[in-house]
């Protein structure tokens, strides 16, 4: 079940949590729920969460504060806001300031939520993959530099290897990764 990602749902209304859980049922996600921000943070400390879908107006804590603390605890977890307000100004600002990846409004459409979460997780996977690859490239470059220092006569061979790799990255298979 968890192979598609772990999602943490946060809302002070249990019925909303139940409905969202139903909505995501069958999408192969691991679903965690929290009714309060502090409860959510406890979960985030021990669980590897890929995405947090959180209500914006919870008692006791400002929505922006909560989003910020999620970012500090799990910098790689995507944050999606769920707002029931008539005025969406704060939601726009949260997205523009990078505090949230996207926002959804209440009432929500099932399809919209499912699609957004799927896309968000894909986006996150891509992002992580890009990071992995660039780390790999950096490591390889370091190794190449070492080899070159020791065997300057290998330069030609190494350059041909790099060229073939670049050609591979430019191919459609490689493009889907970037």
């Amino acid at each position: 079940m968890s192979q598609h990602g772990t999602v943490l749902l946060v809302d002070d209304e249990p019925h909303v949590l139940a409905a969202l859980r139903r909505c995501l049922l069958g999408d192969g996600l691991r679903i965690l729920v929290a009714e309060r921000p502090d409860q959510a943070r406890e979960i985030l400390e021990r669980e590897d969460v890929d995405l947090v879908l959180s209500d914006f107006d919870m008692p006791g804590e400002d929505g922006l504060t909560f989003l910020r603390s999620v970012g500090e605890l799990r910098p790689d977890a995507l944050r999606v806001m769920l707002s029931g307000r008539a005025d969406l100004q704060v939601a726009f600002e949260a997205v523009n300031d990078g505090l949230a990846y996207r926002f959804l409004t209440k009432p929500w459409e099932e399809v919209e939520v499912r699609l957004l979460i799927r896309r968000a997780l894909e986006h996150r996977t891509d992002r992580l993959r890009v990071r992995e690859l660039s780390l790999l490239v950096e490591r390889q470059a370091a190794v190449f530099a070492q080899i070159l220092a020791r065997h300057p006569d290998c330069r030609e061979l190494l350059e041909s290897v790099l060229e073939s790799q670049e050609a591979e990255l430019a191919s459609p298979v490689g493009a889907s990764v970037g």
Partner: protein
Amino acid sequence: METCKTVLLVDDEQGILDAYLGFLSGRASPVVRSARLAATEEEPGSALPDWRLLTAGSGEEAVNLVESELEQDRRIACGFFDMKMPGGMDGLETIRQVRERDPNVLVTIATAHQDRSIDELSRLFGADQQDEWDYLAKPFTKWEVIQKCRQMVDSWNRRRREEVLSRTLEARVEERTHQLSEANRCLEERNSRLEEVLEKLRTTQARLVQSEKMATIGQLAAGVAHEINNPVGFVHSNLGSLDRYVTAIREYLEGVESYGSGRQLEELRRQLEIDFILDDLPALVSQSRDGTERIKNIVLNLKTFSHPGHGTKRPEDLNKGLRTTLELVAAEMRRHGELEVDLGELPPVSCNLSELNQVWMNLLVNAVHALEGTEAPGRVQVRSLYDGEQVKVSVEDNGCGMDAEEAAQVFHPFFTTKEVGEGTGLGLSVVFAIVDGLGGRIEVDSEPGRGSRFTVTLPPAHSMATVG
């Protein structure tokens, strides 16, 4: 005004004319003496005014003199007229014609005997002008003539002066009247302009009150949207899930028909998560029902809140309106702090509940605004009680509070402590007007940093009945 000193002397006897001239010019005349008219009189000399003396030997000559004087823009003050002038116009006719040309000429007739001519003269002058003629009995003395002449000339000049004065006065009165009516017109104009302005102000005020009402409704709508979006959100989402559950169950039933039982059916059941669905269905339904129930209540509360009731007052339980308003805003309020509600038993108050709902709404929204940006955990207390005489409702917050100066102005129209654009500044003045209209009062007790308490005091319906 120049004094007129012209005197007309009319007699067909030259001797008489000479006598007049002698008396009135102060020079002795031989003719006069021969006529034995004033022989014994002492000489008055320079004491006499310098009259301008015109003589006429006949009536016709007299009339001509009057005409030529008038032509030269000169006036004749008075005349001495002989009554009997054989061979021409008699005195009466001469006087008539002279007065026809200049009706101001004063007349003294000289007559030998108390004859009919006096009656005729009296008739000629008519009832209104009896003071414009006099007579001199022949033979006359010098002093009689001088006195008559003085009296007539003075009288004529006095009359002219009075006329001028009277004309001036009339003109002045007219001018004043005109000025007054002008001033009056100006005042009326100003008054009507003021009335126009007042009317405009009234319309503006009515509009502002209306816009304040709309602002309250706007705040309400924002709160309500939030309250309603949660249940609508999960009910709507649940229906989508239910749709998928139904599809899965139908698929499973088809499986039952085709496979009957066995491993394949077991596999399908697991794949479609039928056990989870069957387990979750009652929860889905009851939660959704709970959601629609909540939406229904919000709509009912909204109806009660905004029902106009056409301004009619009835004895009502204030707690009813307080509960309605609190239910609409309680959830929103709890996001900002703690809400304590303590509603005591109250006698009915004659009011319009929806009008009062606006009052509670305003006080509650203000209390929440006061909590914003304060350090301590926010708390709003709503209380109602009956102290045996009055019904009291108080809304108290532990927010930012106000100093005495602000608190004193809080019910004034347009006074606001909120940022520009956040409040119309009319909320509490409208609240004040509503409470005042119900014969109640509203008081504020506030301290900076400690919070504010607004207390609405209203008379119970039974006390109003005994009063009036």
